[in-house]
């Protein structure tokens, strides 16, 4: 499904479930943003529980180094926020580079200081991946983006939204969980005892 199809599907979900919404929610950009946030929650919970995410949730992206803090021994690559801040694979585009992820800055510094020359270290710093090799000009990243439209290589018109189709309905349920239905359910009097099974306010 493309982004547009995700939005259309969300609108149909709202209509079919008689969900009370105002015009603000129905702005298409907001629906997509709400979907992104709910997806982050659903997939984040999966990761916390230790479930593997299928490949369809990932987005591969080839990016050039950014014009940021140039001239030092590091190169910086601008990346979009990822679910659980996990960048599963970061490698040079020549197909043979080896990279090791560091979660903390001290881990990053320690491994650099330990002189592991054959493995390039990288560390997430703000909006950038800081890569310990200024000779690497282009990298291939693979991660589950919170908002794919923030990924510079994502094409809104042509690309499939990176989500496993099986999760779409779960995410919709999460999206609209706090929105009330326009129609309230009628209490059922299922017992034939000439009395209401639900107490009326007057009694």
């Amino acid at each position: 499904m493309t982004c547009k199809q995700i939005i259309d599907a969300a609108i149909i979900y709202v209509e079919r479930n008689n969900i009370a919404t105002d015009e603000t929610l129905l702005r298409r950009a907001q629906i997509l943003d709400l979907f992104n946030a709910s997806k982050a929650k659903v997939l984040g919970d999966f990761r916390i529980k230790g479930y593997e995410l299928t490949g369809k949730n990932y987005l591969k992206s080839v990016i050039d180094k950014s014009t940021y803090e140039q001239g030092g021994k590091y190169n910086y690559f601008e990346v979009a926020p990822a679910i659980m801040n996990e960048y599963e694979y970061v490698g040079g585009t020549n197909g043979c580079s080896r990279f090791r992820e560091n979660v903390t800055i001290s881990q990053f510094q320690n491994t650099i200081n330990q002189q592991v020359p054959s493995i390039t270290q990288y560390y997430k710093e703000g909006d950038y991946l800081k890569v310990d090799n200024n000779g690497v000009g282009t990298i291939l990243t693979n991660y589950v983006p919170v908002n794919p439209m923030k990924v510079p290589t994502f094409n809104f018109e042509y690309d499939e939204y990176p989500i496993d189709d099986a999760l779409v309905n779960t995410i919709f349920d999460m999206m609209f969980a706090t929105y009330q239905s326009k129609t309230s359910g009628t209490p059922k009097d299922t017992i034939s005892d000439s009395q209401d099974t639900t107490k009326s306010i007057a009694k």
Partner: protein
Amino acid sequence: MSAARKNYFLRMSVVKNLEQNYASISRQKSVDEISPLIKTYTPFAPYNEQVLLKPLHISNIVNTTGNTYQVFFDRPHNFNFGLGNVDITFSGVLGGTYTTLNNQVFGASDALTSVDTSVLITTAAPLSGTYTANSGQVVGDYWVSNYYHLLAVSLECLRNINATIVKVNIAGGCLITLGTNNIRNGEYLKFSGFGGLTGLSGYKYVKKVGERQIRLYNDVGLTTPVTVTGTYTSGGIIERTHNEYCEPLLSDQKISAYQATENFPLYESNENRLACYSSDVNTNPYITNTNYFVDYITVQAEIDITNDTTDLLQFYNQEMCRMIIEQAALLFFATNTSGEDVQLTEVIK
């Protein structure tokens, strides 16, 4: 009930019925009922980031010199004289031989004074008598002259994809090496500003031959490579066309963080103008709005209750006429609830 009030209920009824039918236009019944009364996907080029709605009313016509007349309007005309004269057609002008302007097309040019609210025209012969102030109007293809009610609008814009051009190889077709990009196979993109090269301008089809390499073709089948000559020096802009239907930019949402984008454009219509946005107040220098495609109800839909000569069945089918009358009656009763307001007259058989 006054004629103005009758007109009001009919106008409300017509618009309500047309909107209902437009919403379900996929059904042939709806198309039959409203097709003579609406225009869809009608292109208008914006100028000053807006397109004018409704005719321009003339407030005065003054002879400047010889057969040249300055025509003043009741509001800024928003004409783009950068492309030459703008054709305008006069109607409803009163007074002396000024009436000869009616139904004639004139190429209007930029006025030297009151440039925003007036234009110059040159007539074949001098006009005599006295022009009746505030009579007449002008219409043209330049703006939505026969506008009655807006249904929908889509915005076409060009977005610079901001890709870094690394090199251009012209041997055996045109092969461009780029930086980070989101170009896809088969896209139809606009190229400009490639220094030192001839033939690499305008729209081309793209074949993606690598993550950072594209080859250009003249045909959608990607069989005829683009022929480019020269030696690439520097520069180069690649733009993508976006065309999306707009959502309304509501006044209480102007503060919203969700500003317009090329993928989610917004529109607003006020003061007889239509403005579409592809960025916050169209301030993004990388996006150029090129066309508005407007779906609207035309003035043809207006029913004049004092006109006993025009057969409404020329424009409305029988079912639509019945629905308009029914809807107008419902609107009347919805706004008149007291017995004093509603007085039924016995039908005399």
